[in-house]
């Protein structure tokens, strides 16, 4: 079998997905045995023009992490799509939009004003906001334009596979690499490197009947480390979230926030979580239900923590002035 040709790229990302690949430790050498890495900005010295010079479909697989936040991200997504037979959305940002996708609750100008004009440590009397083009004495300077909204990779180009997680668990990265090397990938489009169950199905905590009269948070509770967090009234996104992370937050006695994305067949993770929460509320009196629900602060930012750009909501919409 000829060696596989693979590429890795980061768009609007924090670097955590790449760290997850580096955390393969010695196994990285095995990857190098089975595949030629043709593009990986964090580690290797190949450039955009090297990718442009490739024939279309030259790379067997390209792992793309990070969301699409600006025009350069989109340009690279389109270029890598053209040059790759298989494109994998790697990690929550690329797959769902991720935590930076929470910015979709706000308008672009609002974000810029807060950072540069609303900060107590930034006097900025001239109200300077960074610009795409600036003319300095010696010449013109450019930076990429900040898009109005965060987009997922699949909202920009067709994607074959989705590898969830913020970041993907190292063993799942390895499982996906093995599946690729041995040609055991499912029919696209599909989620790989994760379970087909919900996190609750794999969670080792003791579960009984869930009847909630009052929601709590880690701010006012020390949770019992053995018992289901949701049963203790702590919002845990396990019912709406795909398993595969190794329940790492649960092990730290903290609730899930959904980084592995929706369970199979579910389009909108937040809506699924909402129905899960509705089903555990122990009351049929509308007034009491309202009071109990009011005990969940920021349901949107909690249920859609990692998936707002991919959800049916997507974020605020502003009619463009013609």
């Amino acid at each position, binding site marked *: 079998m000829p060696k596989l040709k693979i590429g890795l790229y980061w768009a609007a990302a924090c670097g*955590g997905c790449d760290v997850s690949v580096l955390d393969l430790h010695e196994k990285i050498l095995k990857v190098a045995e089975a595949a030629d890495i043709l593009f990986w900005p964090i580690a290797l010295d190949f450039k955009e023009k090297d990718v442009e010079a490739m024939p279309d479909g030259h790379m067997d697989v390209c792992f793309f992490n990070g969301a699409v936040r600006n025009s350069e991200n989109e340009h*690279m997504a389109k270029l890598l799509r053209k040059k790759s037979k298989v494109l994998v959305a790697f990690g929550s940002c690329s797959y769902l939009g991720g935590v930076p996708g929470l910015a979709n609750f706000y308008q672009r100008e609002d974000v810029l004003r807060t950072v540069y004009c609303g900060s*107590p440590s930034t006097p900025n009397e001239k109200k300077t906001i960074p610009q795409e083009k600036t003319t300095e004495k010696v010449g013109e300077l450019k930076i990429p334009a900040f898009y109005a909204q965060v987009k997922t990779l699949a909202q920009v180009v067709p994607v074959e596979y989705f590898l969830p997680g*913020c970041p993907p668990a190292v063993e799942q990265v390895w499982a996906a690499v093995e599946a690729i090397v041995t040609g055991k990938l499912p029919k696209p489009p599909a989620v790989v490197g994760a379970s087909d169950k919900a996190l609750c199905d794999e969670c080792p905590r003791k579960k009984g009947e869930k009847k909630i009269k009052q929601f709590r948070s880690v701010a006012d509770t020390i949770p019992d480390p053995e018992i289901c967090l949701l049963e203790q009234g702590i919002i845990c996104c396990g019912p709406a979230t795909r398993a595969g992370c190794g329940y790492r937050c649960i092990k730290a006695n903290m609730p899930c926030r959904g*980084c592995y994305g929706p369970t199979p067949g579910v389009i909108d993770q937040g809506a699924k979580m909402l129905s899960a929460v509705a089903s555990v509320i122990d009351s049929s009196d509308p007034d009491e239900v309202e009071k109990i629900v009011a005990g969940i602060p920021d349901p949107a930012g909690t249920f859609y923590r990692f998936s707002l750009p991919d959800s049916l909501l997507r974020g605020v919409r502003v009619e463009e002035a013609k």
Partner: protein
Amino acid sequence: MKRITIDPITRLEGHGKIEIFLNDAGEVADVFFQVPELRGFEKFCQGRPVWELPSIVPKICGVCPVDHHLASGKAVDAVYGIDPPPVAKKLRTLYHCVHRIHSHIAHFYALAAPDFVMGPDANPAVRNVLGVVGKVGPELGGAVLKARRLAQDIQAMMAGSQTYPNWMVPGGVSKGLKEEERKQIEQHARYFVEFAKTSIKVFDDVVLKNKAYVDLILSDAYKLVTHYMGLVDEKNHLQTTYGKVRVVDTQGKEIVKYDAKDYLQHVAEHVEPWSYLKFPYLKAKGWKGFVDGQDSGVYRAAPLGRLNASDGMSTPLAQAEYERFFKTLGGKPVHSTLATHWARIVELVGAAEVALQLATDPEITNPKVRELPQQKPSEGVGIVEASRGTLTHHYKTDEKGMVVAVNLIVGTTNNHAPICMSIKRAAQGLIKRGQQITDGVLNMIEMAFRAYDPCFSCATHSLPGQMPLEVVVREKDGTIVARRQR
């Protein structure tokens, strides 16, 4: 006017870009270091419950998530006016030291070492961590990988995931240490101390015993006379997680020592339209532009800043190395940017020693790892030393704990103006009219900012340890007159 663009990842979504403008005589007229990235955490953290922020802000950076997690946890404590139990503070410090070990190892061996082991103008094909391993032997390579892996394992054990920490809660941490976990950490910490000693020796053999390198470190092209900042304890010893922020001037004299809550009295930020990243400065001195010296407001943070701003280390091996550092480099403060690499080794030793102290502390397995909030939440500031500089998180909430304002001054941001100035100075010293711009020259310009371990270049934590660079020399009309790539 000619223009040289150093775009680390060549027109891709960037983490830093250098623009060098040459005048008609072919000398450096001006240099701009641009950060083309913004995600706006300050905005979208608004409206979230404040206790959720410690698990949101690590997404600012996947390379230093722990620093953000801790600064956030401390800010949340302050929002609720809680003082966590002693063991919670010790656990946080232990966890922080282990992260520091992982981060400093990655930087020194993968990134800095190639320039010194292989040489600043060595063939780029071997000027990487693989080249280093080839030269110093696979044993050291194996030890580096092992030390980094053990550090990652401890972080996962303590906080759920090594890259996605979810452990800080108001008033403490969500989970303590069991005795069998403690034993494992102790064993690993002993390995870290031995590894740190090896690292001193590596630095000695490779850098200090080579006069050319010591001269390079002390040369004017890599010197910047600034003020310095870092956390210290009551004895003014360097700290990572708790303590006060101390600022010393260009002569090493204390300007101020402040509590986290007072940061706005001492630090402010300047905005330029050509970069998404702001430029912090000392408020008392004011923003005087990109200039160094006693009257400038520009200060430096990170390992060099911390060593200069402190009076010593709290542990014996690190203290000995601290003393040798200043003795060798001509006394305090050291203004040589490249000395940051050595400062990082001094900190690596200190972090390993503190980790071992804490792992063998009889109290460390005490299950009382948090206090529950009693007060209504309002406002708070949390400061820790991130690997790349003093990290400030400032939150305001309503009385239910919903966030209404967030202000962040991130580690690398402290050094933004110094990075710009260091690059300019190196470029001015290295680019001479009529001379060819070789790969070695490029790399030596790059070394000026690589010393800071800038976090927007997470690329600096790469395997072969080298940022891809492209330099394009253009005429005023944009036509390319020379191109060099590696």
